[in-house]
C-alpha cells in the first residue's frame, strides 16, 4: 500500500510523514522553552535599523525580479541566448516546428 519499489531502492511516504511530525514536535518543544516576555504593540516589536528611519512597506519588500539577481547575472550569456530565442513572433513558432521536423526527418527517414 505504501512502499514503491524502484528496482534499486524503495520509497515509503509514511516514514517521511513520521519524520516530519517528529521534527515539528521538536520545534514545538524548543519553542516552548523560550522566553515568555513578548508583548504585542510595544516598543520591543519595532525593528531597529541603527537609528535610521524605517522605509515604507513597498521598499522593504524585495521585488520578484531582483530575488535571484546573482544567479541570473552570473549566467548572463545563457540568459541573453534564451531571451533571444523567445521572440514572441508567430512565424518563428512555425519555424521551430519546421526545424524539428527537418531534424526528425533527417535522423529517422534516411
Amino acid at each position, binding site marked *: *500500500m*505504501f*512502499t*514503491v519499489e*524502484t*528496482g*534499486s*531502492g524503495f*520509497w515509503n*511516504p*509514511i516514514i*517521511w*510523514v513520521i519524520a*516530519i511530525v517528529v521534527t515539528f514536535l521538536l520545534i514545538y518543544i524548543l519553542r516552548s522553552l523560550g522566553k515568555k516576555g513578548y508583548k504585542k504593540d510595544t516598543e520591543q516589536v519595532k525593528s531597529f535599523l541603527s537609528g535610521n528611519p524605517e522605509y515604507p*512597506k*513597498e521598499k*522593504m*519588500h*524585495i*521585488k*520578484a*525580479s531582483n*530575488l*535571484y539577481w546573482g*544567479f*541570473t547575472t552570473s*549566467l548572463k550569456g*545563457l*540568459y541573453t541566448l*534564451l531571451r533571444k*530565442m*523567445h521572440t*514572441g513572433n*508567430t512565424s*518563428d*513558432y*512555425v519555424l*521551430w*516546428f519546421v*526545424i*524539428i*521536423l527537418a*531534424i*526528425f*526527418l533527417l*535522423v*529517422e*527517414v534516411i
Partner: protein
Amino acid sequence: MNVPDYTIALVVAIPLLGAFLTPLVGRINDKLRNIFVILVLTLNAFLVFLLASDVLTTGIKTYVFGAQDISYPIVRILFEVDAMSIFMAIISSILVTVAVIYSWSFMKENTGLDKYYTLILLLTAGMLGMVLTGDMFNFFVFLEITSIASCALIAFWTHKGESVEAGFKYIVISAMGALFVLFAIALLYGQYNALNIALLSSVIQYTFLDKIALVLLIVALAMKAGIVPMHMWLPDSYGSAPSSISIILVSATLASLYGVFRVIFTLYGNVLSKIANFGIPVNVLIGWLIVALAVISILIGVFMALIQSDFKRLIAYGAVAELGYMFLGIGTGIVALGTAYGKTALDGGIFHVINDALDVGLLFLVAGAIYYATKETSLDKLGGLARNMKYTTVFFIIGFLAVAGMPPLNGFASKLLIYESTFQLNPILAIVAILCSILLLAVFVKVFYSAFMGPQLPKFKDVKEVPKSMLFSMGIIACIIVIFGLFPEFIINNLVEPAANALIGYSEYISQVVVGGI
C-alpha cells in the same frame, strides 16, 4: 463492475448534448445554467469512473458505432478503451469538473458566460473523444474540436490585447499541427486503405512513407503537447487565459501527449523494436531523440521560469519543465523497451502525467484566486498576501512542494521512479533531472516569498479570502494530491501499471479488433 458497452459512447455524447442544450438553458436563468453544467459534468465523471472500474478489471472494451451485426466492423468508427485511455479520461474529467466549480464565482463578473460554458463542455467532449477513440480520422476531428474550443476560450477576455494575441498564436500552431496530422493519416490511408488504429498497426510495414507519417505525427502532436523548442505558444496561452481555462488547457495538452504515446507504442508498436535504421534499432533512435528534447525541455523550462515576473507565465514554464520529465520517462522507456528499468521509467512517466496535471492545475487555481482577490498577476507588485488569504497560502504550499518533487507529496514518487530508471540509462540524465528539480523548488520559493511573504503592503490591506466555491475546488485537488502522495503504491498498482502494460501490449490492443491477432 460491469457496465453496458454503450457507456463508452455516452461518455462523449453526454457532454456534446449538454453543450447543445446549454444555450437553451441559459436563456431561462443563469444559476440554472451553472447547475446544469455542473450536473452534466458530474454525471459524466461518474460514468467515466464506472467505465474505469470495468476496464481495469475486465480488460479492453470496444464499441462499434452504428453496427447492426459486427461482421465487418473495420469500415465503421470504433472506440477502443484500454487502461491508458481511461487513465487520461479520468484526468480530464477531474480537472474539468473542478474548473467548472471554480468558475462559478471566478467568472461571475463576465458577460458571455453562456458561450463560455458551452465551449467548456465542447472542450471536454473533444478531450474525451481524443483519448477514447480507436480511429485515426476520428482522433483528428476531436483534436480540431479541442483546439478550436480552447482557442476561443483563451481569447475570452477580448478587452486585453494579450489574450487575443495568445489565441491567434494558439490557433495558428494548432491548425497547422492538425493539418499535418491529417496529412500523415492520409499517407497511411493511401497505403493500407484503413483508418482503424488496430488494423493499421497489424499491417504496417515501415516503408519510406510510413516513416514520413511517423515523423509528422510525432512532431505535430509533440508540438501540441508543448515540448521545447516548440513550446513558445504554451506560456503565452496559459498565461493569458482565465485561470479556470488554464487548468483545462493542461488537460488538453496532456491529451495531445496521449496521442504521441498512442502513435509510438500502439500504431508503430509492431515495427518499433524489430526494424533497424543504419544498424540502430528504431526504438533507440526515436527514444534518444525524445530524451534529448526532454532534457532540453527541463532545462529551458526551469531557466525561463526563474526570470519570469508574471505569476501565470512562471507556472506555465514550470509546466514545460514538468512535461520534460514526462517525456524523459517515456523516452527512457522507449530506448530500453523490454528491460526492467525501461518498465520502471514508463511507470514513472505515466504516473507523472497525472501528478503534473494535478499539481500544475492547483497552482493555476491559486494564481487565479490571487488575481480574483487583488486584480494583479505581476509578482513584482504582490506581497504579504499570506496574512489575509490563509487557505490559499496552504493550498499554494501543497501545490509548489508537489511540483518541485518534495517528499512526501505525489510529485516525488513519480520523479523518484524517473531518476532511478534514467540513472541506469545514463547517469548524466538523472543528475540533470535532480538538479533541475531543485531549481524548480527555488523558482517556487521565489513566488512564495514575493507573493505571500514579506510585509503587508498597504494596497492589499483590505484583500479578502476568495469565495467558498473556489476554495472548495482548490481543496478537492489538494486532497487528491495528498492522497496520491500517501498511497503511491496503491495508485501505481491500480492505475499506472495497467496503463503502462496497455501501452506496451500492442498485440492485445490489435487482437480486440483484428480477428486472429497479428
